[in-house]
């Protein structure tokens, strides 16, 4: 699921609410059939989160960080799990490197290893390719699509890269000032609003907002 909107639309706030970091001012949140935050512990054991704006401790090695998070997620046979995910995301050679010394692309892949440690049923990704060059971003997207298809994983995805979102998402929710203004597959949204693609829709929305504010 792609979660889109201009800066300040409320994407990160919504993810933070879904993860129990912010209390909503109204309404209820149900994830995997359970109410957040009342069943927070049970829900968070089955979901995970990754964002380039939230770092893993830079003073620990990649392996140390992953061991700590394995314990936090109660992962069985965590050493094997770290080894397998390290191979899957191509970070095996980085496991004994200090996290703070990795490049942005390497950190993004390590963050994804952390995000897959507990075999989540839902993965929240806040702009996972924001700090990456096009090649590294493409590698991450390919990995994510494979995991989505192989594991039947739900990915809740925010990004400013419209092509990326179109490629990854079967459903898109478009937020504007904290409200949902479009919800459906990319083709449907584009058709409904008479635009050529999502990018055009996004730009039109941002321009109309600027004009209103002027």
């Amino acid at each position, binding site marked *: 699921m792609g979660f889109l909107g201009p800066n300040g639309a409320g994407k*990160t*706030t919504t993810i*933070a609410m879904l*993860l*129990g*970091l*912010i*209390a909503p001012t109204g309404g209820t949140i149900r994830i995997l059939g359970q109410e957040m*935050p009342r069943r*927070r*512990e*049970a829900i*968070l*054991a089955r*979901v*995970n*989160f990754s*964002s380039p*704006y*939230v*770092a*893993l*401790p*830079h*003073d*620990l*090695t990649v392996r*140390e960080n992953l*061991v*700590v*998070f*394995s*314990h*936090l*997620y*109660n992962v069985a046979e965590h050493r094997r799990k770290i080894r397998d995910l390290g191979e899957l995301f191509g970070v095996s050679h980085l496991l004994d490197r200090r996290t703070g010394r990795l490049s942005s692309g390497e950190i993004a892949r390590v963050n994804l290893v*952390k995000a897959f440690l507990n075999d989540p049923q839902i993965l*929240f990704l806040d702009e996972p390719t924001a700090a990456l060059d096009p090649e590294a971003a493409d590698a991450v997207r390919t990995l994510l699509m494979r995991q989505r298809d192989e594991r039947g994983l739900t990915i809740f995805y925010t990004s400013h890269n419209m092509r990326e979102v179109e490629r990854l998402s079967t459903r898109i929710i478009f937020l504007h000032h904290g409200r949902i203004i479009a919800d459906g597959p990319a083709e449907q949204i584009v058709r409904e609003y008479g635009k050529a693609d999502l990018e055009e829709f996004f730009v039109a929305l941002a321009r109309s907002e600027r004009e209103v504010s002027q």
Partner: protein
Amino acid sequence: MNWRRIWAMNLRQLFVLRRSFARVTDLFYWPLLDLFFFGFLSVYLGRREGAPMIAGLLLSALILWDIFFRVQQGISVSFLMELWTRNFVNLFVTPVTVTEFLVAMMVWGVVKILITATLLTTLALLLYGFNLFTLGLSLVPFVIGLIIFGWAVGTVITAIILRYGQAAETLAWSLAFLFQPFGAVFFPLSVYPQWLIGVLLLMPLPHIFEGMRAVLAGQPLPLHHLGWAFLLDAIYLLVAWAFFGYMFTLARQRGLLLKAQE
């Protein structure tokens, strides 16, 4: 309560300690400087006044004070570390509960003082011939009383940082020292004006340090002081937990958990 998660948060601190010069400095450098200063001062005063007890009084007070301070700091600084490394959000999107987080910080505070107090006690014996264990079994309740008060103060500081962000981080190093001149740490309660004594006795520290001095003077363990210390400890710890819980709820409502690490 999931002990594996509590272990994980302590493991993270141990990993940092293994290679962080700043954290090792916290653990050894300042306590050792204090020990040398008070050790030589007590040697000098002991010779001059002909009062051999002065070394015992000063060094016992120093080591016990350090237990309180290191426990408090263990809690506040381990919390700050999560903010400095921008790991706080990562931590709270795992199933870790607030209680587990608090317990993990409390355990880490105890681990820190086990290391520091062992070092100080050994060096005090080797360098100044002072054996802290002359306090005998009464050492145990004194130490427990100080640990509990350290937990309470550390938890309150953490809650304030959670609410006001890293602007309040200086409290982690400074607030405990407010208790040093008013906690009857290095001198007896009788030094204070009469009107102030009643107020100071609302803190556990004067009870514990008065008890320590009584035992060093060869008197029996003053149980009334000990009783008061534990009663006050329990009250302060419960208030501190409630305060943290309130601040955490407030932080969730105002979105401060996301902003805390910025």
